[in-house]
């Protein structure tokens, strides 16, 4: 079947009685969209200012001459989507208790990406709390090199006392602590990630350190996001970010309704188009959208100490 656009519209219009459909079909006679005129999206969607507060850089080495394809694709995507700043880390995953040399190498690759894209890529320092005082020294090293916060993965529950010195360092430096999170309900996944923290673990850490700038990472990153949002009602000082590969309807609205938009931060965690789309679709006010897109995180950055 080889339909041209006009004959398709002619044949469909003949069989379609609904007035609403007729209205849509008339609109469809317009030419293919030009930039700035994307169907179903706000006219200014690319121009709305956005900070992606949870993303990653993955490159094959820490040197400036490493393979930059992934990082450059990240920047290209940010250009397409109007994401002004990307706050990135390179965590060591799969439950590996990496030694400090491996952690430094991972952070060096983030620093290299920051040098390649200054003013665009900003860094979180990945730390493995089990490295003890060396982990705290690594935070200082990263901050002195220009990073803005720390990122923890799932090597330890955030209620584990081994994490406390890291939290205290964040308070001392006035920097955000972005934590990997999920309330995993699938036994297979839970067996692979037994120490992943969920909303109530974040709340417990926040109750111990109310002044900590604590961010629950990727509410849509896999795991029961409805549970995560309801869980965070138990603690007022924890932010959450909107990232993750799950694009389920009503997530953003539930965050805003149950927690208040002031606690919600835009992020993608590499699901860049999807997470921008979630924000554009959410039934929230323009001021709430702007706050989530960038203002809330700017407020967190402004609280850093020298």
């Amino acid at each position, binding site marked *: 079947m080889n*339909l041209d656009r006009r004959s398709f519209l002619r044949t469909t219009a003949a069989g379609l009685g609904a007035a609403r459909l007729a209205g849509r079909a008339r609109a*469809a006679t317009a030419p293919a969209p030009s930039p700035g005129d*994307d*169907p*179903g999206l706000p006219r200014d969607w690319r121009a709305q200012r956005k900070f992606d507060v949870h993303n990653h850089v993955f490159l094959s080495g820490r040197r400036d001459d490493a393979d930059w394809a992934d990082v450059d694709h990240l920047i290209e995507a940010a250009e397409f989507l109007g994401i002004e700043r990307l706050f990135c880390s390179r965590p060591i995953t799969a439950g590996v208790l990496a030694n400090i040399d491996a952690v430094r190498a991972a952070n060096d690759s983030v620093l290299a990406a920051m040098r390649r894209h200054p003013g665009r890529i900003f860094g979180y320092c990945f730390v493995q709390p089990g490295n003890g005082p060396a982990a705290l020294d690594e935070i200082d090293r990263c901050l002195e090199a220009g990073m803005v916060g720390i990122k923890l993965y799932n090597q330890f529950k955030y209620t584990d006392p081994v994490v406390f010195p890291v939290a205290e360092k964040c308070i001392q430096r006035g920097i955000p602590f972005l934590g990997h999170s999920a309330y995993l309900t699938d036994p297979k996944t839970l067996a692979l990630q037994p120490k992943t923290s969920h909303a109530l673990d974040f709340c417990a850490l926040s109750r111990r350190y109310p002044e900590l700038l604590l961010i629950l990472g990727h509410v849509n990153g896999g795991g029961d996001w409805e549970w995560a949002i309801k869980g965070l009602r138990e603690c007022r000082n924890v932010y959450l970010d909107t990232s993750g590969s*799950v694009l389920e309807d009503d*997530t953003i609205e539930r965050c805003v309704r149950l927690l208040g938009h002031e606690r919600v931060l835009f992020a993608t965690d590499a699901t860049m188009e999807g997470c921008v789309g979630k924000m554009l679709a959410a039934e929230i006010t323009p001021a709430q959208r702007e706050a989530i897109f960038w203002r809330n995180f700017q407020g967190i950055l402004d609280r850093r100490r020298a």
Partner: protein
Amino acid sequence: MIIDVNTSLGHYPFRALRHRTAPELVALLDRHAIDRAVVSSLHAVFYRDAHRGNEELHAATRASGGRLVPVATINPRYVGWERDLAEAVETWGMKAVQLVPGHHGYALNDAYGRSALARVAELGVPVVLRQRFEDRRQRHAWDQAEDLTAATFLEAAQAVPSARFLLLNWLGLDGARLAAAGLKGRVLLDLARLQVVYRKDALRLLETLGGEALAFGTHAPFDYVAPSLVKLANLSRLRPADYEAVAWRNAARFLALA
């Protein structure tokens, strides 16, 4: 013109959905400038007698003036399924048939799956296969269905060479492997979980399978609609020649929409 090939109507047992009735779904389409939607019944996935869900869907979509294009869901383990299939396709004119082996208790490659694929292919309509409804990491304790895998799909598709497939919510399919398996021209994949920029898996599929292989799809009302609109907008800049095909033309051709 935009046709969404990936929508559902009805309740989902494990999460409250907005926009789950036909009028609500049409209003959602209107809000996002989407002209038509290919829709299947969630009730048909969970009722013991799936065809009762098809009956509801047939009734619910008739009043949409063609905005909602119904897809049947068939359970080949249930008594009288071939009669139900014939009624849905030949009497009601449903444009495709969904199989949900993980929910209906069979495998795409066992005797039930193979006979369903063959019978749907004989009727000349595509088979709809969703890789999943939800991310398994958030599954309810009663949700036991596993994601469909590429290996299972490829084996089934090669066993029934006359079958065509509308593949929804898939990620991780290698276009070169599909082409090598003789599926170029036999598959239409939706954008719901693909990326146009950054990971660029949508672009790789266009390169390996051709411009006729992708279609706009949102997985509404489970997912927000705008993520796929953002992808379509990016495609209009990166591959303007493929824009119309992905936005609606491929769906219209593959599903023989009037």
